């Protein structure tokens, strides 16, 4: 395995990790602060991608599509919160799973009705097209670098929001002990709504950014949702820092596993067995990682303070 291939795969892993972080950030806050399991969070990511397609079709400009898609994703998230989710905060986890499962079915199908079942595409914007020469013989698409940069920017912004602002302080307090925050006179419902809308927008942003490099299709959020759950469980529920580190970890493990598992297995077993076992093992790696983390550290690697 050459060094260039290795570096490219590391960058790919980072890029997947960044997208995962954008989705997982909202999920972990909603879960940590409101104790609400939102299976429909992946749908927000899919909606982001479809909104990018729609607004790109209307305006012909990717920048305009991003600027229009973000507030729309926020509004759709808030609409879902008002219509369905806020009635579920007091219910047990199973009721939440069931209801949000229903929401997934509805939105996946609604998307199919509006845009059709065939995969759609958004072209990569001209400014960000082409590849950048990182070193001799190593070219990497500018757009993917842009995703990494944008994601790191959002992560920085989030870190400031959570650690440096009053709302962030309330969110952190809420993740540690929501009833206490409520008892101290904070309107926890409004805090929930802010967190929820913000999380929906982040997931939407991930969808918008992914639209030019992945095919936009119904159900694209479901796979990512499971990965995002893996991320927040590994990182520790309610912890933004944990979500960030775990997202990068999962992104890297998954990407590197898929590229190199077969090669590594060839060192251990016969080549034909390795081509069989390799891909299966690669797909399993993150789940093995999660099972291990859960078994040895049930609260995750970086738990939000105070919670066992």
């Amino acid at each position: 395995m050459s060094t260039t291939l290795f570096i490219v795969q590391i960058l790919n892993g980072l890029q997947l990790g960044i997208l995962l972080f954008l989705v997982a950030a909202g999920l972990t806050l909603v879960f940590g602060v409101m104790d609400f399991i939102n299976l429909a969070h992946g749908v927000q990511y899919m909606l982001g991608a479809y909104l990018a397609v729609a607004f790109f079709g209307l305006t012909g400009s990717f920048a305009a599509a991003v600027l229009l898609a973000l507030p729309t994703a926020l509004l759709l998230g808030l609409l879902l919160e008002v219509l369905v989710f806020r009635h579920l905060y007091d219910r047990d986890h199973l009721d939440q799973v069931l209801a949000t499962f229903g929401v997934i079915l509805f939105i996946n199908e609604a998307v199919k009705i509006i845009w059709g079942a065939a995969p759609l595409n958004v072209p990569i914007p001209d400014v960000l097209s082409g590849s950048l020469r990182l070193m001799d013989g190593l070219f990497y698409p500018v757009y993917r670098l842009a995703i990494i940069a944008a994601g790191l920017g959002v992560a920085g912004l989030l870190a400031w929001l959570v650690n440096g602002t009053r709302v962030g302080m309330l969110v952190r307090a809420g993740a540690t002990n929501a009833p206490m925050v409520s008892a101290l006179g904070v309107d926890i419902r409004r805090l929930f709504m802010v967190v929820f809308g913000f999380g929906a927008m982040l997931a939407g942003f991930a969808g918008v950014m992914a639209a030019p490099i992945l095919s936009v299709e119904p159900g694209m959020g479901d796979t990512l949702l499971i990965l995002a759950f893996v991320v927040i469980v590994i990182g520790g529920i309610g912890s933004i820092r944990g979500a960030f580190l775990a997202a990068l970890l999962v992104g890297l493990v998954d990407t590197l596993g898929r590229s190199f598992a077969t090669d590594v297995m060839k060192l251990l077993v016969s080549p034909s067995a390795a081509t069989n076992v390799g891909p299966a093992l690669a797909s399993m790696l993150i789940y093995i990682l999660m099972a291990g983390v859960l078994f040895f550290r049930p609260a995750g690697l970086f738990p939000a303070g105070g919670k066992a």
Partner: protein
Amino acid sequence: MSADIAQAVRTPLRRPLDPRALAVPLVVFAALALLPAAAAFGATSYVLSLGARVMIFAIAAISLDLILGYGAMVSFGHAAYLGIGAYAAGILMAEGVDDALLGAGAAIAASGLFALVTGYVSIRTKGVAFIMITLAFGQMAYFVANSLSEYGGSDGLTMASRSTLLGLKLLKNDLTFYYVVLACLAGSYLLCRAVVAARFGRALRAIRENPVRMAAVGYDVERIRLVAYVIAGMIAGLSGFLLANQTEFVSPAYMAWQRSGELIVMVILGGMGSLVGAILGAVAFLMLEETLSHLMEHWKVVFGPLLVLVVLFVRGGLTGLLAGGKRHG
């Protein structure tokens, strides 16, 4: 205090049986037994195969209810057992063993073994961690099935025919197959009822309410949980064997996490912790799916909101509705 609990677990309940609690299962099983007679006037094979399919998923749902409703173990990887049972049937058939009893035995043994190993790890976690760790094991089984290239890989495996019973092709007949599935459903239901009613089942429910106290009283909490988990896995494996025989096809899709989600939906829809609720849930879920998908192409636009409404307004699922809206359990 603790002595009271130990006493309560040890002595069987002597309260008179609520006639309604007995009536619902009787009506359900009578209806299922009589369905073929009614079907004789209509589209027979369609009704029979739909009925068999519903009952197969009802078996899986019952087994999930045993651990979910009575043990508060929310398994998000229960479809793995369905898949393991199905693959046991498919692989044996591909290797030339087509006896149903051997196939079912292998299916039950394989899923029991998988449940024993993964359960041993899983039951040590609680709450959300349990949900996610069972999901992780389910996904591992899913990817292993995808990599079985000798047995169809991700395309799935078509079976040459249905299993034979004592060398006879009895299961080929849709009516016979229907009653075999009904017998399996009745057997699974009675077994789970017996488990729940036994001292073991009361201990399981007591652990659901307060595991710390049960451990303090001297019960081996983890062993009781593990035994329940293995029983549930074995029953689900049986339903997987039946599913493979009905469709004569085995696919990794049987183990996809969405399937596990659907099984949970069936149990909650029917009302968890009542066993017969799991049957009702499977019937309601699959019949709704069938009816709506005949009526329109995009039936999920109706089905999804319906689920949300059920959660918001019908507490305790269908059995809760039958019992007059009171929350079950």
